[in-house]
């Protein structure tokens, strides 16, 4: 009990210590306070955003783009991964293109995406999806191919069709791998969303911070960083909970 309490409290204490270090650094005025505000002013700015409601619209845009891109990437990654793992034809067909596209940084795709889709949500969502499809795809290829040979025989003995085999055997056995890939992907999704907003001037938390930087409003930048950090934290917590529920058998 005391141990559990300790493991719960320790990270909070560490976070508070970090905030305190930030305060000390800001108070020491190593950097001009105009460019480097302490936590007090940063959180005050965040409070102001919440009070005036200025936070919600950009936050909603950012979250929406990130989740839409991520979910699209997950769907495409799982489907393609299943196809590549199950069919030699699909593998020969798709793998070379995938190897060509994979090393491309997502930001390199922004200019062509803007040309084709314009300055739109759809543009950012597709760039985000492109950026975070790879971990899910690789995990799915591996996961779908890793079904135990004995279970392959059980599926054969019960006369399941290839579709039933994929749904009842391969997908559940691949799920732990896929979840690991999805968790890597969601972090990439947040990064690419914010970067895309900055590069394409689409309203969102990333753009908010860019505009703040141009206007030398440093507290806005730091408030933005706090929001992004909290967002990442919540997403990780959410996926972990979901994973715990779906992978209860482990």
């Amino acid at each position: 009990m005391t141990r559990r309490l300790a493991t719960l409290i320790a990270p909070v204490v560490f976070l508070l210590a970090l905030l305190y270090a930030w305060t000390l650094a800001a108070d020491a005025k190593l950097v001009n306070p105009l460019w480097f505000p302490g936590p007090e002013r940063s959180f005050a700015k965040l409070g102001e955003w919440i009070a005036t409601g200025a936070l919600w619209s950009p936050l909603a845009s950012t979250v929406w783009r990130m989740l839409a891109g991520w979910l699209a990437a997950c769907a495409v990654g799982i489907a393609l991964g299943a196809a590549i793992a199950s069919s030699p034809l699909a593998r020969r067909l798709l793998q070379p293109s995938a190897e060509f596209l994979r090393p491309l940084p997502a930001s390199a795709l922004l200019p062509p995406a803007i040309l084709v889709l314009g300055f739109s949500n759809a543009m950012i969502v597709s760039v985000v999806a492109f950026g975070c499809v790879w971990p899910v795809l690789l995990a799915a290829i591996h996961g779908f191919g890793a079904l135990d040979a004995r279970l392959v025989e059980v599926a054969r003995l019960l006369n399941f069709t290839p579709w039933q085999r994929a749904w009842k055997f391969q997908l559940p056995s691949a799920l732990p791998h896929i979840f690991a890939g999805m968790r890597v992907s969601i972090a990439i999704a947040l990064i690419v969303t914010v970067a895309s907003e900055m590069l394409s001037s689409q309203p969102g938390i990333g753009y908010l911070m860019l505009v703040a930087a141009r206007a030398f409003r440093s507290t806005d930048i730091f408030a933005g960083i706090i929001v992004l950090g909290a967002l990442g934290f919540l997403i990780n917590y959410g996926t972990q909970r979901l994973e715990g529920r779906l992978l209860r058998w482990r």
Partner: protein
Amino acid sequence: MLEARGLSVSFGAQPVLRDIDLTVAEHEFVCVVGPSGCGKTTLLRALAGLTPISSGSALFKGRPVIAPQTELAVVFQDYARALLPWRTVAGNVALALEARNIPASDHAARIAPLLAKLGLSGDGDKFPSQLSGGMQQRLQIARCLAQEPEVLLMDEPFGSLDAITRQQLQDEVARLAKEEKRTVLFITHDLEEAIYLGDRVIALARVKGNLAGRIAEIVDIALPRPRQQLATREDPRFLQYRHRLFRHLE
């Protein structure tokens, strides 16, 4: 019911089984014994349609077995690998019902009596990882029975269980085979187990020189049923059978 005619299996240039002729009649309990590596598992897999036959044939009801079919259920020795770890006990049994396209609304009513029969009544919601080895093997047997096969092919099903669990399961399987009127081909390397369970015992041995397995002797077991662990094993005829078959295991 189940038949091998001049059945031979080779892996590459290596012959593993040569000219096997055997017949298992309806409702008969036939045991196959033999030393390690003589081809017992290969014989069972060939009869189940899992391993391709080099020459001769495996027949089920007079028709060649070229691929697995649901009328032939296989109980594997490595029960832990043969169960779906992400499904509960009830879910694992349901797998066989799904294979037979039985509507989901009927599953509960069919699963309950099967679990009761195998002493797993209270464990329907557990996952395989929460069961002991003996319970996991019971579960695999329950799933095979849910398949309502005409023939049960069992490959050293109790090989990795402790002596007490083993005797319990021997009696359960003997009882189920008679109650449910199943035909059973039971592989074991334990001679006493074979005599205790079988209506007939087939001794498999390796041919000197080329190492391929062939049938050394077939013995009808005229011990009365139901058999009892102590009384049956002390029966003078039991000892005679044991004496007679023992030389094939060297």
